[in-house]
């Protein structure tokens, strides 16, 4: 009896938890006090500053998330290093998953790059792991919701409400039930609605600037990867083929010998130069667009229907995070390994 009862019991526990969470969501969104209500998001493309600075370099929330991603990966790498120094056996638990991912990437790169796989692999694998980890980390609750409250200078802000006082530190939240129109500078103190501006509040019409925001929602991150990849493509091309690599772009031989078709081919070769820049654009905007749109969708849908629907969208986001990381990785692999193969040679295949 006990062997049959156990999974049933666990099932009941899970059902209870899920139903409880649903009830909590309904309470927060529709019944509870207005401070619990979800807020429709403010669309901000550039990364926001968290107020921290290192040697005069401002740490934005996306950079903080990048560093968090880095730390996670480095911890994993250190554990992997410690494990593989001791034995050749497959590790257990999380490290095994890590190894499985690395093995999958390694097989893919080997399949398309051949003998250049060893040189290309660290670059593309890091691309995959960074994007993958960043996309997964950004789904953790607290991202894009916990932050510093800041005075808005235009549009609508919300009145701050103090939740907790621990010594000098005060935990604030913003009250959706009391939107405050931001006024012009300098007048903000005068127009603060007195009854809602709590004691010692840093602002009157407030918005939350999150400490952490998804790395890929910062356009600098995908573009940094895209530019690096495309530059490395040229580097690998020259490394593998020497100066002959640039014949792909400037087909002077064709221009001199080829007649009218040679001129067309020369023009096509020049188009390849444009294509390299287009690669940067498509690389960067693909990742950015997908992840940013996903994050936006999540917060908008979360604000509209706080219950049940965002859970499904979260699942969708997990899927898209993996797919985008894989696509970026695969395209980088194909471009890098394609550069190591002579152009004319490729056409004959």
């Amino acid at each position: 009896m006990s062997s049959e009862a156990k999974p049933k019991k666990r099932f009941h526990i899970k059902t209870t938890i899920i139903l409880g969470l649903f009830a909590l969501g309904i309470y927060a969104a529709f019944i509870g006090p207005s401070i619990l209500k979800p807020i429709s998001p403010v669309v901000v493309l550039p990364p926001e500053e968290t107020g921290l600075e290192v040697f005069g370099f401002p740490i934005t929330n996306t950079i903080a998330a990048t560093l968090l991603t880095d730390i996670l990966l480095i911890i994993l790498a250190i554990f992997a290093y410690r494990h593989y120094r001791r034995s050749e056996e497959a590790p257990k638990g999380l490290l095994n998953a890590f190894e499985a991912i690395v093995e999958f990437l390694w097989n893919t790169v080997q399949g398309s790059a051949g003998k250049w796989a060893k040189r290309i692999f660290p670059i593309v694998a890091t691309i995959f792991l960074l994007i993958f980890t960043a996309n997964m980390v950004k789904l953790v609750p607290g991202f894009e919701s916990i932050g510093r409250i800041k005075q808005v200078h235009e549009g609508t802000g919300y009145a701050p409400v103090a939740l907790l006082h621990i010594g000098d530190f005060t935990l604030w939240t913003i009250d959706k039930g009391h939107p405050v129109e931001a006024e012009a500078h300098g007048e903000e103190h005068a127009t603060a609605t007195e009854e809602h501006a709590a004691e010692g509040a840093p602002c009157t019409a407030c918005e939350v600037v999150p400490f952490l925001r998804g790395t890929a929602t910062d356009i600098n991150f995908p573009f940094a990867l895209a530019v690096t990849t495309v530059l490395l493509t040229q580097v690998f091309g020259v490394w593998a083929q020497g100066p002959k690599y640039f014949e792909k772009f400037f087909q002077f031989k064709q221009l001199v010998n080829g007649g009218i078709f040679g001129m067309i081919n020369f023009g096509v070769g020049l188009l390849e130069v444009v294509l390299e820049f287009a690669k940067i654009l498509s690389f960067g905007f693909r990742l950015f667009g997908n992840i940013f749109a996903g994050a936006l969708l999540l917060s908008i849908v979360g604000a509209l229907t706080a219950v049940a629907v965002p859970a499904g969208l979260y699942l969708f986001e997990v899927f898209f995070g993996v797919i985008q990381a894989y696509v970026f990785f695969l395209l980088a692999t194909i471009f890098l390994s394609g550069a190591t193969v002579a152009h004319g040679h490729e056409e004959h295949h």
Partner: protein
Amino acid sequence: MEFNQFFVDGLKLLGAGIAMLGAIGAGAGVGIAASGGVQAMGRNPDAAPIIQTNMILGMAFAEAVAIYALAVALIIIFVG
């Protein structure tokens, strides 16, 4: 003056929306690529890895058009 500003802002948003119409073709292209890829994999499962790679490559190129549209739309909204 005030009215003209609002008018221009509205037209900008409209333009961004129209720019995103470029995603229609890209969506259709990605769908066609996926359909062809899956059919090919169904016919010749042994060649699945090669087909998959090329399929994703083709989808990426098709999707690039939508990405250009997105870039144009973003630039219209935030930069122009």
